[in-house]
């Protein structure tokens, strides 16, 4: 049985692993169920998470631990069960990155990470209730 705390970047998203399925869709875009994850930057730090159904639906994402090493999301039993996650190594975790109006400041959504079972390629956006992770955590600059 996996430890409930995901405290390490066990799996990094990569660009040649194919399509990810989100059977529930994601909040705000419930009609999108299939996504691709492609590297955006040469250093593999940022990816583009893009809907197959609607290519206009894309967002920048990143593995949170690269910037927030203390990030320790605890998945609910329900999320673990639905995702079929039995080993922490199977969890692929990434968070959306947004910019303010000026495009100067970047923020990471630590409240609602995307979690994918790397074996089944199925994922969902989970919400970390009562864990006090912000929905807009400023991305440390100088990266």
């Amino acid at each position, binding site marked *: 049985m996996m430890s409930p705390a995901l405290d390490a970047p066990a799996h990094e998203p990569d660009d040649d692993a194919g399509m990810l399925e989100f059977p529930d869709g994601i909040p705000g875009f419930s009609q999108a169920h299939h996504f691709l994850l492609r590297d955006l930057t040469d250093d*593999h*730090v940022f990816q583009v998470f893009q809907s197959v159904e609607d290519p*206009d639906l894309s967002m920048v994402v990143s593995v949170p631990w690269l910037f927030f090493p*203390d990030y320790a999301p605890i998945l609910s039993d329900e999320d673990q069960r639905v995702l079929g996650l039995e080993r922490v190594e199977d969890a692929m975790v990434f968070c959306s990155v947004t*910019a303010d109006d000026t495009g100067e400041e970047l923020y990471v*959504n630590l409240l609602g990470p995307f979690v994918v079972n790397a074996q089944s390629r199925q994922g969902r956006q989970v919400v970390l209730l009562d864990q006090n992770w912000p*929905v807009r955590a400023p991305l440390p600059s100088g990266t």
Partner: protein
Amino acid sequence: MLILTRKPGESIVIGNNVTVTIVEVRGDQVRVGVEAPRSVQVHREEVFQELARGNVEAVAAAQRARGALRKRGAGAPPGRSRPPRPPDAKPGPPPS
């Protein structure tokens, strides 16, 4: 909106496979149980709205975020090298 009156222990059924049960009523709080297939994610409404807002914002900001990353010099086209992590990546919260 359909409005139904239920007592604790009673349920309503939505569609073929979602059952909502009133578990307990205490003062101004109502405990509700939801049985749904695993493909139906159940959220508190305000939490769902916050996630949805965050996602809509992330999609709207995708171009700006890419521009900001380019300015920071992190927008080179994908290559095959894989450095372990940027040497200057800083932790967000101070170490405890």
